[in-house]
C-alpha cells in the first residue's frame, strides 16, 4: 500500500470530523446561551481541516502556500481585532468577499490548468467561478459603501439592461468554456473579468439601507461557490460546509428582507434604499421640545419605560451612557425593557451586538413581536436615535415607501420622548409622524450628552 493512501484516509476522516464540528457549531450559534461555544467548535473544525490538508498527496508550492496563509491571517487578525462594533457589517462583507474571491481563484487555477475533467466538473467550476467573482467584487463595493469610501449610488438609464448584458456575456463565455468549445486564455480571462465587472455594476446602484440584505445574499452566494468548487476538487468538507452556508444564508437573507418589508427582487432591481420617497404632506402638527430635567422627573416616577434604540445612538457611541441611565432607573424600581426592531442598526441583530458591548443583558432586550403589545401600558417610550422603525406612517400612508413595514408601536405609549440630534429626517429621508403627535416631546442633542444630562436629572430627583 503506498504511503499516500493512509494519508488519504486521515484526510477524509478529518474532513468528516470538520463537517460535524461545523454543523454542531452553527447549531450552537443559534441560541444566545450556547453561541459562544459554537464558534469555538467551528474554529476547532477549521483548524483540523487546515492542518490535515498539508498532507494532501502530490502537493507542491509549500513555499508559496505558507507565506500566503500567514499574510492573509495576520492582516485579517489585525483588522478583525480592532474594528469597532458599529463597523461590523462592512467587515463581514469584506471577509465574505475574500471567501468569494478565493472560490473564484480556485476555479481560475483549475480552468487555466485544464485540471477539470468532463463537462459536469467543468460546468461546476465555471458556475462557482462566476458566483465567487460576483460575490468578491460585489462585497468589495458593499464594504466601500458602508465604510463611506463610495458615497454616491451610481444610477443611470439602461442600467438594468447593462447588467443583463454583462450577465449574458459572462454566461456565454462560461458556456463556451464548459462545453469545451473554447477554453483559451483569452476566453477564460474575459469570463472572469466580465464576472468581476458584473458584481460591481450590480451593487453600485443599491442604497446603503439595503446593503445588509445584499451582504447576506453575497454570503449565501459565497457559500454556494465554495460548495461548487468542493465538487470540482472532490473535497467533502467544502461541499458540506459551502452548501450548508449557501442554504442557511439564503434563509437568513429572506428573513432580513422580510424584516425590512422588501422583497429580494425589489432590493436588487429598484433604486430605493438611500434616496427616500417623496415627502408626503400627511404630517401635521408641530415639534414640541422638552428639557432634560423634565424628562428626568418623568422617567424617575414612571412605572414602565421602554427604550427604543436606533443607529443614531450607536453613532454617538451613547450605548454605555444610556445603559448607565437605565441601570439608575432599574434601581429605582422602574420596569425597563429595550425594544429592538429587526432592522435597528445597520443589519438585523446589529443593535443587540452594540447593546451587548455596553453590557446590557440580553434578557432585557425584546424583539418586535414580544414588546409591541406592551407599549400601551408603558408610561414612557424613550426613542434614542431611531426614526423609521417607529414611524406610524408605515401603518397608515399607502403612498409612503415604508408603508407596510412592521414598526414598533411607540406612539401607543402614554408619553413619547425622542432624543434626536436635529430636525432632519431619518436614514430613508421620510418625515416621521410620531414626532408630531400630541404625546411626543423632542429632546434635542447628541445622545451621549442627553444621556449624561438625564442621569444628572434623575440623581437630582433623589
Amino acid at each position, binding site marked *: 500500500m503506498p504511503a499516500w493512501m493512509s494519508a488519504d484516509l486521515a484526510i477524509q476522516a478529518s474532513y468528516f470530523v470538520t463537517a460535524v464540528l461545523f454543523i454542531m*457549531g452553527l447549531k450552537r*450559534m*443559534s*441560541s*444566545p*446561551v450556547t*453561541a*459562544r461555544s459554537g*464558534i469555538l467548535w467551528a*474554529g476547532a473544525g*477549521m483548524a483540523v481541516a487546515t492542518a490535515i*490538508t498539508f498532507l494532501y498527496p502530490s502537493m*507542491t*508550492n509549500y513555499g508559496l*502556500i505558507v507565506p*500566503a*496563509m500567514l499574510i492573509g*491571517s495576520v492582516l*485579517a*487578525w489585525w*483588522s*478583525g481585532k480592532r474594528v469597532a462594533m458599529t463597523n*461590523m457589517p462592512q467587515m463581514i462583507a*469584506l*471577509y*465574505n468577499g475574500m*471567501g468569494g474571491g*478565493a472560490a473564484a*481563484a480556485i476555479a481560475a*487555477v483549475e480552468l*487555466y*490548468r485544464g485540471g477539470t475533467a468532463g463537462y459536469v466538473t467543468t460546468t461546476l467550476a465555471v458556475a462557482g467561478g462566476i458566483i465567487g467573482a460576483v460575490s468578491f467584487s460585489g462585497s468589495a463595493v458593499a464594504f466601500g459603501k458602508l465604510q463611506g469610501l463610495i458615497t454616491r449610488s451610481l444610477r443611470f438609464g439602461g442600467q438594468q439592461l447593462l447588467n443583463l448584458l454583462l450577465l449574458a456575456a459572462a454566461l456565454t463565455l462560461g458556456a463556451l468554456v464548459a462545453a469545451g468549445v473554447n477554453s483559451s486564455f483569452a476566453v477564460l480571462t474575459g469570463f472572469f473579468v466580465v464576472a468581476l465587472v458584473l458584481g460591481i455594476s450590480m451593487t453600485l446602484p443599491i442604497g446603503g439601507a439595503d446593503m445588509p440584505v445584499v451582504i*447576506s445574499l453575497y*454570503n449565501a452566494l*459565497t*457559500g454556494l461557490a465554495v*460548495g461548487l*468548487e468542493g465538487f470540482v*476538487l472532490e*473535497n467533502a468538507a467544502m*461541499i458540506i460546509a459551502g*452548501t*450548508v*452556508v*449557501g442554504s*442557511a*444564508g439564503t*434563509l*437568513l437573507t429572506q428573513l432580513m428582507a422580510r424584516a425590512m418589508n422588501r422583497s429580494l427582487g425589489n432590493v436588487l432591481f429598484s433604486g430605493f434604499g438611500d434616496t427616500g420617497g417623496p415627502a408626503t404632506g400627511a404630517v401635521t402638527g408641530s415639534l414640541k421640545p422638552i428639557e432634560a430635567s423634565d424628562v428626568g422627573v418623568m422617567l424617575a416616577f414612571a412605572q414602565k419605560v421602554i427604550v427604543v434604540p436606533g443607529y443614531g445612538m450607536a453613532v454617538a457611541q451613547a450605548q454605555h451612557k444610556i445603559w*448607565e441611565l437605565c*441601570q439608575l432607573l432599574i434601581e429605582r424600581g422602574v420596569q425597563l425593557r429595550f425594544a429592538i426592531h429587526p432592522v435597528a442598526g445597520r*443589519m438585523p441583530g446589529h443593535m443587540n*451586538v452594540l447593546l*451587548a458591548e*455596553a*453590557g446590557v443583558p*440580553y434578557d*432585557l*432586550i425584546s*424583539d418586535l413581536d414580544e414588546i409591541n403589545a406592551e407599549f400601551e401600558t408603558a408610561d414612557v417610550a424613550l426613542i434614542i436615535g431611531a426614526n423609521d422603525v417607529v414611524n406610524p406612517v408605515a401603518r397608515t400612508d399607502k403612498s409612503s415607501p415604508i408603508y407596510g413595514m412592521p414598526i414598533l408601536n411607540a406612539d401607543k405609549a402614554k408619553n413619547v420622548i425622542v432624543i434626536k440630534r436635529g430636525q432632519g429626517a431619518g436614514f430613508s429621508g421620510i418625515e416621521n409622524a410620531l414626532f408630531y403627535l400630541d404625546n411626543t416631546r423632542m429632546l434635542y442633542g447628541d445622545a451621549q450628552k442627553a444621556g449624561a444630562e438625564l442621569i444628572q436629572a434623575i440623581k437630582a430627583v433623589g
Partner: protein
Amino acid sequence: MTGMVALYIFMLAAFTGYEVIARVPVILHTPLMSGSNFVHGIVLVGAMVALGGAQTPLEKAIGFVGVLLAAGNAVGGYVVTERMLEMFKASGTRRVGKGPH
C-alpha cells in the same frame, strides 16, 4: 465520488443548513451571519490544494491570491464572530470590571 452521491450530499447539506438556522432569534442574526461567513472560510483547504497543484507562474500567482484571500476569510470571520458572541451575557452573569458599574 459518483455524481448521484454528490447530489445526495448537496441535497442533505442544503436541508441541514435550512433547519439549523430556521429557529434563530433576530438578536443573533448578525453574529450568525458572521459565523456562517467564517464556516465558508473552509475554502482555504481548496485554495491550498489548488495552489499545491499549480504549475505555471499565472496559476501560481492566482493560487497565491486565492490562499491569501481564503486565509483572510477564515481568520477574520473567526475573530469578529468570537468578539461579538463573547459579549452576549444574561442578567445573572454580568461582566465585572468593564462597562459603567
